[in-house]
């Protein structure tokens, strides 16, 4: 690891123990690891269930999800339910700054992860609990997977909007790909962990209670704000009045003009068609009222043009537009390559892939590139005295 001994990555020296079964807790650890913290996953014999979570890489039994979430971490195996479990846990917690744990409340005592007990034994420890519905409140013992949590926080009900809803209005609401809610819970847990650790020199360690449901609600705050303004949002009506998803030749385009100048540029892009010359359309409120009509015209135009041409012409004119890019487009993307978004990833069995390093850069101390997926127990447990 070529790192400036004085400077180092942002979280050089930060020691994290992660006991995770959920994407949320694992993502919290992953963000900290990407920024240079030393993150050790404490896994049960046989490994965390995330090692078997789909999607699997074709022709292997390796989880692409686990590979993403564990890149750059270490693995120690410890059976917390075994007679020596408590001793092993305490040995591993020596010198740890942040513990991330997603053990359900009812199982914590048996695994020696009760926060009050731990805080007495490790008063400087920042102990972050990450649970679907949090560790306190009347539903703290409720359980939920991604699909439940996205809907428990109100965002699921609002999807899809726009073109997907227009095409399939009778279908049930639609989940966002993958583990969107858990990524919210995980990033919120990482934030809370670093905030509590920031306060530690004065306040000592403390227990932090993070809920995935809360985190999704937090990013969905505008819908609650709209409720306060008197509007109950629904996926049928929250689409933009005009703009949105359009099918073009060879793909789909997202187009959104919020400012007058962007509308004017869009009219130019469309070749100043006669329908757009209507003076009434200079008024944004009138455009909103006639959104469906405008979209019909734009849809017809989009279908006649190639997706890459459209987005290039649009960006040249200052019209916010983007291609709906596939994962293959993103991994090959010139922009992403230029920014060093991806790094080599070594998986089990000698497999080499690429992985997104982190969704942020530190320009004075760039993050480390190459990462590995830790084999189960690749680091021996600290010996028990």
């Amino acid at each position: 690891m070529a790192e400036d001994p004085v400077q180092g990555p942002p979280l050089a020296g930060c020691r994290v123990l992660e006991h995770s079964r959920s994407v949320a807790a694992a993502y919290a650890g992953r963000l900290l690891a990407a920024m240079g913290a030393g993150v050790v996953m404490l896994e049960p014999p046989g490994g965390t269930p995330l090692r078997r979570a789909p999607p699997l890489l074709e022709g292997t039994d390796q989880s692409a999800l686990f590979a993403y979430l564990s890149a750059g971490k270490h693995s120690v195996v410890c059976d917390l339910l075994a007679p020596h479990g408590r001793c092993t846990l305490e040995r591993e917690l020596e010198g740890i700054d942040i513990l991330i744990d997603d053990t359900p409340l009812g199982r914590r005592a048996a695994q020696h992860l009760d926060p009050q007990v731990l805080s007495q034994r490790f008063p400087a420890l920042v102990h972050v609990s990450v649970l679907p519905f949090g560790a306190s409140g009347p539903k703290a013992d409720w359980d939920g997977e991604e699909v439940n949590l996205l809907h428990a926080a109100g965002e699921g009900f609002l999807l899809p909007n726009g073109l997907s809803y227009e095409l399939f209005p009778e279908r049930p609401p639609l989940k966002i790909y993958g583990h969107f809610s858990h990524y919210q819970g995980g990033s919120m847990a990482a934030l809370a962990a670093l905030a509590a650790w920031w306060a530690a020199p004065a306040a000592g360690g403390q227990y932090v209670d993070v809920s995935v449901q809360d985190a999704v609600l937090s990013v969905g705050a505008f819908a609650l704000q709209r409720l306060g303004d008197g509007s109950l949002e629904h996926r049928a009506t929250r689409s933009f009045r005009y703009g949105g998803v359009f099918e073009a030749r060879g793909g789909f385009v997202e187009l959104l003009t919020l400012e007058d100048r962007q509308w004017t540029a869009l009219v130019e892009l469309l070749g100043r068609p006669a329908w757009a010359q209507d003076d009434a359309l200079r008024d944004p409120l009138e455009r909103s009222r006639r959104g469906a009509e405008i979209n019909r015209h734009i849809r017809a135009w989009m279908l006649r043009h190639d997706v890459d041409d459209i987005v290039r012409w649009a960006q040249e004119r200052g019209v916010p537009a983007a291609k709906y890019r596939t994962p293959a487009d993103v991994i090959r993307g010139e922009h992403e390559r230029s920014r060093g978004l991806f790094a080599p990833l070594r998986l089990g069995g000698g497999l080499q892939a690429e992985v997104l390093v982190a969704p942020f850069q530190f320009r004075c101390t760039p993050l480390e590139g190459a990462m590995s997926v830790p084999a189960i127990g690749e680091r021996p447990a600290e010996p028990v005295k």
Partner: protein
Amino acid sequence: MTPAQAPLCGVRIADFTIHAAGPFCTQLLAQLGAQCIKVESKTRPDAFRKPHAVYGRMTAATFDQVSVNKLSVRLNLKQPEAVALAKRLVSIADVAAESFRAGVMQRLGLGFQALRSVKPDIILLSLSSSGQSGPDSHFAGYAPLFGAWGGLGWMSGYSDGPPVEMRHVMDHSAGTHAAVATMAALHQRRRTGQAQHIDLAAREVASAMIGDALIQASLGQRPERTGNAHLSMAPHGVYPTREPDRWLTLAVRNDDEWRALAQELNQPSASSDPRFASADARLHHRAELDALLARWLATRSAEATAERLQRAGVCAHVSWNMQDVAGDAHLRARGATTEVSAPGIAPRLAVGAPARFSKMHDVGIRRLTPALGQDEDYVFGELLGLTSAQRADLERREVIS
């Protein structure tokens, strides 16, 4: 010394962010106790101070979530003296945050080197759609475009439909990640005393949410768009109930949960049906299962069924709208939702503390949306030491404006 009641007490942010993603980030840090000074101007007021036809809002917002806890000052950054004042503000801040298009801060004379020259250990957060470098760095964009560029929009959607447009949650996800990076930079500064420039591209946050699919794509494999289905769980998805547009979400992880579900829905024969006896078998017969679930649930109340299934150990939840969220005692008890009110603002719910801290009880909303420039006595007077006469002169010449 009174112990701090919020973890970021003592951290000061000079906040130049606009739109949603950047302000959401600084709002989170402000809820965690940072003092956040929002720099605005009369000529370029924040979006919430204006009508928003696209969302059908015809007047300024009375309450704006992403401006809670913030102090407001006016500076017309087109004027060199305002830029000088902005630098003075940065010189007494720990963090400067901005979300302009790449290059704008530089043109204003507020680029990283300029800020570092007035505050050698400044942390500058630059949040933009496509980042500070790379061929697309000049691209303008909003949340739906971040989702499109980053691949999350493509991966979401019905398996036979178009990609799906991401909304504010995409902006705010970028904001949360920006807050994480800012905290890490604060720790780094504590350790090294050095400045840092954080470059966050919102489209890369969208990509971070398909991190598994990107690994597959890097190996030439084609990730699957699964819609509401799951690759290892069945039943899994969103099901109609007896009430119109009232959906129940279900995720059955193993055989025990499957048997519990069948029992709670009074379908004893289903739990012994060999088509559904194992996870693999249920996945194979997923379509039949989905049809059965729709039939079984057609006579049931969504909410009562969810509660009953939760008690039986099955992951279930109603697809809640915001009225349901607002009425939930659990979220209220946690302070995740909190009632706010002020003169001119009738009591309403807002999103409160992002986490609960055992030793810190002042995390959350302490004050609401500031009026434009309402904190200039404190910021320009007390913190920067400008006299009333100086401030009046600067206002007359529209430097403070």
